[in-house]
Each structure stands twice: as structure tokens, then as C-alpha cells.
């Protein structure tokens, strides 16, 4: 049973477009949702995160939109650049949990 689900395994956009990566979860106890970015040959690294008390978190070109009632969230990458081409993992955890549940990842291709 997949607790964190990413709707697309792969996404391709043109440079300058907004890339939208979708994610949903099942466990109502999750209250912290990080997104990790992974480049080929490297380990994942935290990109941006949101807590369930918020419905939006913005950091430069990256924005998380969160819908607690629907149990889904999305990562928007504005003005996508070829350098944003990477795999993006949606993840979830509870405040007192010792582990993070990762989705399967979305491979983003940004074409020049």
C-alpha cells in the first residue's frame, strides 16, 4: 500500500514554463511534507517543505500548494530552467515520527 503517491513518473516542459508536480497521501497523521530534489549520480537533497497548518509555501521559483481536506499537494516550479531537470520526491512524516515516507519520484525534463 503506497502511502505517498506521485501522479506522474515523468514530466516534460519547455524552458520558461511552469512545471507542476502532483502528490497525494493517505495517512491523516502526516503533518510535514518535504520535497527532495535529486540530480543524476547524487543523493537527494531537501528543496522545500510545508507543514499541514499552511496551505502555501514559497521559496523563490518553487511553491508548494497544500490541500489538507483533499490530502494532496503540488510543487510548482515557475520559469523552469534546464538546470531544474532532476527527479523530485514528495515525502511525508508525522511530527513525532522517526522516519519519512517517500513517493516514487517524478523525473522532470526541462527542454531548452
Amino acid at each position, binding site marked *: 500500500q503506497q502511502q505517498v503517491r506521485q501522479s506522474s*513518473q515523468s514530466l516534460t516542459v519547455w524552458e520558461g514554463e511552469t512545471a507542476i508536480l502532483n502528490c497525494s497521501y493517505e495517512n491523516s497523521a502526516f*503533518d*510535514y511534507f*518535504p520535497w527532495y530534489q535529486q540530480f543524476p*549520480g*547524487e*543523493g*537527494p*537533497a*531537501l528543496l522545500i*517543505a510545508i*507543514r499541514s497548518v499552511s496551505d502555501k509555501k514559497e521559496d523563490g521559483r518553487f511553491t508548494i500548494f497544500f490541500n489538507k481536506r483533499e490530502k494532496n499537494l503540488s510543487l510548482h516550479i515557475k520559469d523552469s530552467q534546464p538546470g531544474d531537470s532532476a527527479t523530485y*520526491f514528495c515525502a511525508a*512524516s*508525522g*511530527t*513525532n*515520527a*522517526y*522516519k*519519512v515516507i*517517500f*513517493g*516514487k*519520484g517524478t523525473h522532470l525534463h526541462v527542454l531548452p
Partner: protein
Amino acid sequence: EAAVTQSPRNKVAVTGGKVTLSCNQTNNHNNMYWYRQDTGHGLRLIHYSYGAGSTEKGDIPDGYKASRPSQENFSLILELATPSQTSVYFCASGDLQGDAEQFFGPGTRLTVL
């Protein structure tokens, strides 16, 4: 300077052989984790640890053991390697709570022939 390092970076093993993957962190984090990454499966948790001397089973622990001899070091042990364990393995460290950032190492590519 990298805070989470893994060795070796690449390893080729034979079926039935013993494999030890090592991880070292200089973040002074209590928690450490071992994941494997496979196409179509994302990151799956194998074992984790709350601190020196502790190891806990993750979501896919079968065929793996772990050892945490110190705050800095966390090893993953495959006593009898099988081809199904061919994968990329990542170690990570993090603070006490699950909502703390995890810092990943660069990964170890393991091939079991």
C-alpha cells in the same frame, strides 16, 4: 566538505558473498538511515538507527542487517548477497524528529552477479 560519506561508491559482488556498505556522518545527528533506490520504486527504507548501539527495521529489511557502532558510523550488511539486491544504496542522517531534514550521502551502486 561532505557531511555524509559512503564507501565504497561502486561494488561488484558475487551471489552468496558478504557485502558491507559503510556510512559516516559528521552532522552529529542521532538518526541514520539506509535506503535503496530502484526504478519504479523510489526510495525504500531498509534499516534505521536512533543512535549508537541501536538498529531498527525499516520497510524492507529482509536480507539485510545493520550496525551502528558509533554516532558517526552506520553500516549495512548483506550476509548472503543475491542478484535482487542489485541497486543504488543511500545513507542519510537526520535529527531526532521525522520532520527534520535528512541529509543524504552520494550513494553506493551495488551489482550482484
